[in-house]
């Protein structure tokens, strides 16, 4: 309290011009960020957290937006500055890093040039000085061989490394405030851990303040000194992070926190467990119900995968000769029983989605055997493949792109039923109404179009559609990853309910370890196209054996403020690539049995 705040926001209200009327998106926000402090703004999509940060930087389109209130940044009244003066503030007093490291660097200039340009413009350095300073900054963000990477282009860097470059650029002018808008959301969990650590260390070294915007309670708990919870454009709670987490006063805060899956919270439980149902008015959570045993493991598995391999050829040169291959899925085997959920977890490029698609032959596997509900999947012709669809269905990640925008919801859900000639139009209608009710929507919504629904509702529609053929197996490819926490909890509960009532088998593909722990019976950890560890959920989570599984678990941010200040030790390891040359022979893998059904790859 002794020093003057770096950023002071008073009664900030931001409105947008919508159809000729002003609509406020952020209302009456007031907060301070003190020197050296990290303040997190947390909220779900549409809560106005990004608009708040853009208002502070005055990055909203001037004609169609209006900012009211008072913003003091390093003593300057931001809202009173001219656009020209504002340009001197951006990247100087305050810098910003964004979510998408793939698009926020200019692809046609080297990264060295992009950073030194900032130095030359804002600091008035000469070209030589700027080059030396850039290399120092790249070293500071722990980019290996910084000097030799000065002349590399953005596409030569991985996502995590690009985010480091972005941070280096943001630090170039030694800003007093760094605004980080979801800087780790697009990154894999082990890379996210590295970047969070890096931000913490840099903050100590540089003594700057950080305004951190995120939807992830785990990240908040790990990084923030103080936390602001936003809900529908309003600041509902502000306080020291552990205060907010442990003794949140606003019901929304408590509802949000109890909806967040916590890694390690399933220690004493035998079966998958529903998320607690929370009353938004009071914030009271009902005790979550465990799902009764559904697995019929004694019988033959409904899905059996043996030595599945899927590779994509890489062609290059004048005559498109094959020069290598992406070994997306390499010799994997597993069984899935009726009523069981097997989760495939791993980071991007580990082959988990390719596995799901290969099983359905949406992608042609290279070799191996897949037997699904009695079908020899790899031997099926076009007709057989159509029949296979009745046994296995898929739910996609993005509910905004997985429904045809020009088709009513009713048409979308009844279409599989009609196209497979399973009954009359009347029966199709009844079935659709029934399915909508089953997923918690009203049959009256049949004549509406997808864009009239929210993300969670759309995902319910996608689930109803997948169920219309009464499949035995559902491949859920990151089906809850794009949803907000509270919605994610609801959809997970729905999937668990459906598993119980319809005895479905789920192949649950996800990168989210906490959700996986909650919903799975068994877990398979994938790395570079191979399964490195597979076993019952409790065994894998409580007794991880493979080094990669351990690393993955350690990287997951847990929403527990006691873990603030945790350091994983700044590493800058990158994810390895499954691209191999033509003459690459995959090594024969051996597995060691740790306990019953718990297998670990022997390195």
């Amino acid at each position, binding site marked *: 309290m002794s020093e003057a705040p770096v950023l002071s926001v008073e009664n900030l209200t931001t409105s947008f011009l*919508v*159809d000729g009327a002003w609509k406020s998106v952020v209302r009456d926000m007031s907060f301070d960020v003190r020197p050296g402090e990290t303040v997190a703004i947390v909220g779900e999509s549409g809560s106005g957290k990004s608009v708040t940060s853009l208002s502070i930087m005055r990055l909203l389109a001037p004609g169609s937006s209006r900012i009211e209130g008072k913003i003091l940044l390093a003593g300057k009244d931001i809202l009173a500055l001219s656009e020209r003066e504002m340009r001197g503030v951006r990247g100087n007093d305050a810098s910003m890093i964004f979510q998408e490291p793939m698009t926020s660097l200019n692809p046609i200039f080297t990264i060295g040039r992009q950073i030194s340009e900032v130095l030359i413009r804002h600091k008035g350095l000469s070209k030589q000085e700027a080059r030396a300073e850039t290399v120092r900054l790249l070293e500071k963000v722990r980019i290996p061989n910084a000097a030799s990477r000065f002349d590399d282009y953005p596409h030569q860097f991985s996502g995590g490394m690009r985010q480091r470059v972005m941070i280096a650029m943001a630090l170039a002018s030694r800003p007093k405030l760094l605004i980080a808008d979801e800087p780790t959301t697009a990154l894999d969990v082990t890379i996210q851990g590295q970047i969070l650590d890096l931000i913490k260390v840099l903050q100590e070294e540089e003594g700057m303040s950080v305004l951190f915007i995120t939807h992830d309670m785990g990240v908040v708990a790990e990084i923030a000194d103080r936390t602001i919870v936003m809900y529908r454009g309003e600041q509902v709670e502000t306080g020291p992070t552990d205060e907010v987490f442990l003794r949140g006063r606003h019901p*929304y805060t408590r*509802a*949000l926190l109890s*909806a967040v899956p916590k890694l390690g919270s399933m220690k004493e439980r035998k079966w998958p467990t529903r*998320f*607690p*149902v*929370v009353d*938004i008015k009071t914030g009271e959570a009902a005790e979550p119900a465990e799902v009764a045993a559904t697995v019929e493991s004694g019988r033959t598995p409904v899905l059996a995968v043996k030595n599945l391999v899927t590779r994509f050829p890489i062609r290059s040169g004048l005559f498109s000769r094959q020069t290598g291959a992406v070994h997306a899925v390499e010799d994997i085997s597993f069984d899935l029983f009726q009523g069981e959920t097997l989760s495939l977890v791993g980071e991007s490029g580990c082959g988990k989605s390719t596995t799901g698609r290969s099983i*359905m032959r*949406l992608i042609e596997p290279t070799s191996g055997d897949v037997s699904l509900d009695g079908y020899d999947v790899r031997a099926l012709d076009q007709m057989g*493949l*159509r*029949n*296979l*669809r*009745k046994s296995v*269905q*898929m739910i*996609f*990640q*993005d509910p905004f*792109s*997985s*429904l*045809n*925008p*020009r*088709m009513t919801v009713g048409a979308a859900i009844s*279409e*599989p039923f009609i*196209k*497979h000639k399973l009954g009359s139009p009347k029966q199709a209608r009844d079935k659709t109404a029934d399915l909508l009710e089953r997923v*918690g929507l009203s049959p009256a919504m049949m004549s509406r*179009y997808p*864009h*009239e*629904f*929210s993300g*969670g*509702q759309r995902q319910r529609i*996608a689930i109803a*559609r997948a169920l219309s*053929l009464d499949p035995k197996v559902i491949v859920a490819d990151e089906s809850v990853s794009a949803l907000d926490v*509270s*919605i994610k*909890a*609801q959809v997970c*509960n*729905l999937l668990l*309910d459906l598993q119980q009532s319809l005895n479905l088998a789920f192949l649950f593909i996800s990168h989210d370890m906490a959700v996986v722990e909650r919903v799975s019976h068994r877990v398979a950890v994938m790395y570079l196209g191979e399964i490195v560890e597979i076993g019952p959920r409790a065994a894998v989570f409580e007794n991880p054996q493979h080094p990669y599984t351990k690393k993955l678990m350690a990287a997951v941010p847990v929403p527990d403020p006691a873990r603030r200040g945790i350091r994983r030790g700044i590493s800058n390891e990158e994810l390895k690539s499954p691209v191999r040359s033509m003459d690459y022979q995959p090594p024969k893998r051996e597995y060691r049995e740790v306990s019953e059904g718990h297998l670990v790859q022997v390195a």
Partner: protein
Amino acid sequence: MTAIQETAPVAAREPSRAWRKMKANRSALVGLVIIFFFTALAVLAPVLPIPDPLATSWSAIRKAPSATHWLGTDDIGRDILSRMIWGAQASLLAGVVSVVIAVVIGVPFGLVSGYFGGWVDMVISRVTEALLAMPFLITAIALAAFLGPSLMNAMIAIGLSAMPIFVRLTRGQVLAVKTEDYVEGARAIGLGHFDIMTRYILPNVFAPIIVQATLTVATAIIAEASLSFLGLGQQPPAPSWGSMLNVAKNFLTQAPWMAMWPGAAIFLVVIGFNLLGDGLRDALDPREA
């Protein structure tokens, strides 16, 4: 069972939203009014109280606009107003029919080319590029000359020349839509290629095709006028704006009104379609609220 109540976004339905944006766009409305005006004239030509467009009069050769002949008369004494109104039929028909030909042939080729890819795409794309390399009007003239002079043949020639634009536009749109999850979802529920192309891809690529079609109507009207001017379109004595210009070019100094009216009409209709096309492009663009 829900943890936290969600609310559906209050979004207007697609068609009504597009229409609302159209109505707010003044220039698009002007275009619509112009097109409506000329279409009404063309349709009502048989019942309007105007002289026979083919009736000649030796006593009224190349008369300037007057009370009896509002827009004047031509070199063999025919009433220009009447010929303008009947000529509108030929011009608008040529514009619309030739674009329909171009869309009906071009869109399926583009759809197949983009959807299947591989050698099918290779063949269709190379042929399309070869056709696009030739100037539109030159191709149309060559085709019309080859087919023989008549209004129908002119429309076919213009339609075929405009077709490659639609192949390429459709193909590009299909490539973008093809990667959407809902297309893979359609495969996952076991739909065949035909269903996927007609129910999932076509409806989602149609907006830019409609815009392109509207703009191409304008080009086609000019092309028809050019062909008629060269004697390859509407055959005398039947009127069309292009053939009227063809005759008028011999009397530019003595009877400028003979060229002025058809020229102005072509100009207005083309502007009308261009304004409408631009308006549609904005209205159908989902990125603009």
